[in-house]
């Protein structure tokens, strides 16, 4: 446990010190938020209707684009080899690194996103459901992204490939994240519960898949 704590602390420090952390992801988020109204048109009512969807999809893309950081550098500088020889299982290492990605990138984004929704005239009564659903959903997003990151480790054009591999897996998170923002109280609670279930299932599945992929690349 102490060993995983050390890993978590290190990954968080690295995320804070190096570029490509939450700052860059937030910059990306804002850029998309500026471009979309330009593409769609400034009509307040249209933007208000589209706001939750835009925010969710931008969140998906931001998490995905920052995912290569989870394993890539540690693979390139040899750290991952040493980690594979530690007395901890590679599954736990993968889980800890995905968790660090959530804490350092996805979680701050999902807390900030609903407030950035002001730019899109987001209805105030769905700020809370949106925040709650994004916090839970983003955990699943980071974990699923860690699968993609491990599968495309060290591949040229990995960025495109990771999108094809991971975005289809994001469909359920997007669906239930969106259905939490319909404003219909009968749908909000089940949606949030299903999102938690998806996050928990990813918590089990993702480290197993990611560790298996990492082993294949370390061979």
């Amino acid at each position, binding site marked *: 446990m102490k060993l995983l704590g050390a890993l978590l602390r290190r990954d968080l420090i690295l995320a804070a010190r190096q570029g490509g952390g939450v700052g860059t992801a937030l910059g990306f988020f804002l850029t998309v938020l500026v471009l979309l109204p330009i593409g769609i048109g400034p009509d307040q009512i249209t933007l208000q209707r589209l706001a939750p969807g835009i925010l969710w999809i931008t969140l998906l893309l931001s998490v995905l684009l920052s995912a290569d950081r989870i394993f890539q550098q540690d693979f390139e500088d040899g750290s991952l080899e040493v980690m594979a020889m530690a007395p901890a299982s590679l599954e736990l290492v993968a889980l800890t690194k995905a968790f660090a990605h959530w804490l350092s990138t996805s979680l701050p984004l999902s807390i900030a996103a609903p407030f950035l929704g002001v730019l899109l005239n987001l209805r105030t009564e769905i700020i809370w459901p949106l925040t709650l659903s994004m916090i839970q959903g983003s955990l699943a997003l980071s974990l699923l992204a860690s*699968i993609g990151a491990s*599968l*495309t480790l060290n*591949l*040229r*054009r*990995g960025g495109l*490939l990771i999108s*094809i*591999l991971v*975005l*289809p*897996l994001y*469909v*359920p998170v997007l*669906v*239930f994240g*969106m*259905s939490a923002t*319909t404003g219909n109280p009968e*749908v909000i609670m089940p949606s949030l519960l299903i999102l938690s279930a*998806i996050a928990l*299932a990813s918590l089990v*599945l993702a480290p197993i*898949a990611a560790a*298996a*992929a990492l*082993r*294949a*690349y370390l*061979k």
Partner: protein
Amino acid sequence: MQQFANPTRFLSLANGALPYIWAVTLILFAIGLYGALVTAPPDYQQGETVRIMFVHVPAAWLAMLVYTVMALASAVAIIFRHPLADVAAKTAAPIGAVFCFLALATGSLWGKPMWGAWWVWDARLTSMFVLFLLYVGYIAIWQAIEETGRAAMIARIVAIVGFINIPIIKFSVDWWNSLHQPASVFRMGGPTIAISMLWPLLVMGLAYTFLFLALHLISIRSEITTRKLRNLQIARSENR
């Protein structure tokens, strides 16, 4: 990894079985198409366009069946380390993707007279679309990784992760659709289907299955030959 457990025996078995499989495929298609185009009555609402169903529905079935075959083969490859299983999974993917594309294309053709649009975000079509993306990702992995052993391992993970997610995706898409279109526009299949339409549908499903079997055996055969050839080339370059 590169040596096949029993490639010669597999090849001779496949070569022996293929003519019979082709024969069965042709007979099934003849019966199925006769039933679909001649004996089945036009639908009282949809008219003659309902006949697209006999091409569309079995293609969708096969797209799901083939992904299942791929995932099972990948699991076999992990558990028993039988290298032929990787080949089976790899070669099934493009065929499954074609069935999936066929289902999407015929669904779109069907949509035009039904809904007046080439594409409607119906729950089934959307799930099928996501399945198509899963196929594309799986095929892309094989193309992106050059070393065969590593590509095989990564592809197994992709196939199994995708397979676990298919029911979840299906469930979520149904949920999404019911949220946005409370009254289902369009129902097909189900127990209400008339027997005169059901039997051609089932025969067409069987015909598609045998077609897949034949195509799969052929592509496994050519994949084995390709790998043998490559190993011979490597061996020759080493001996030089």
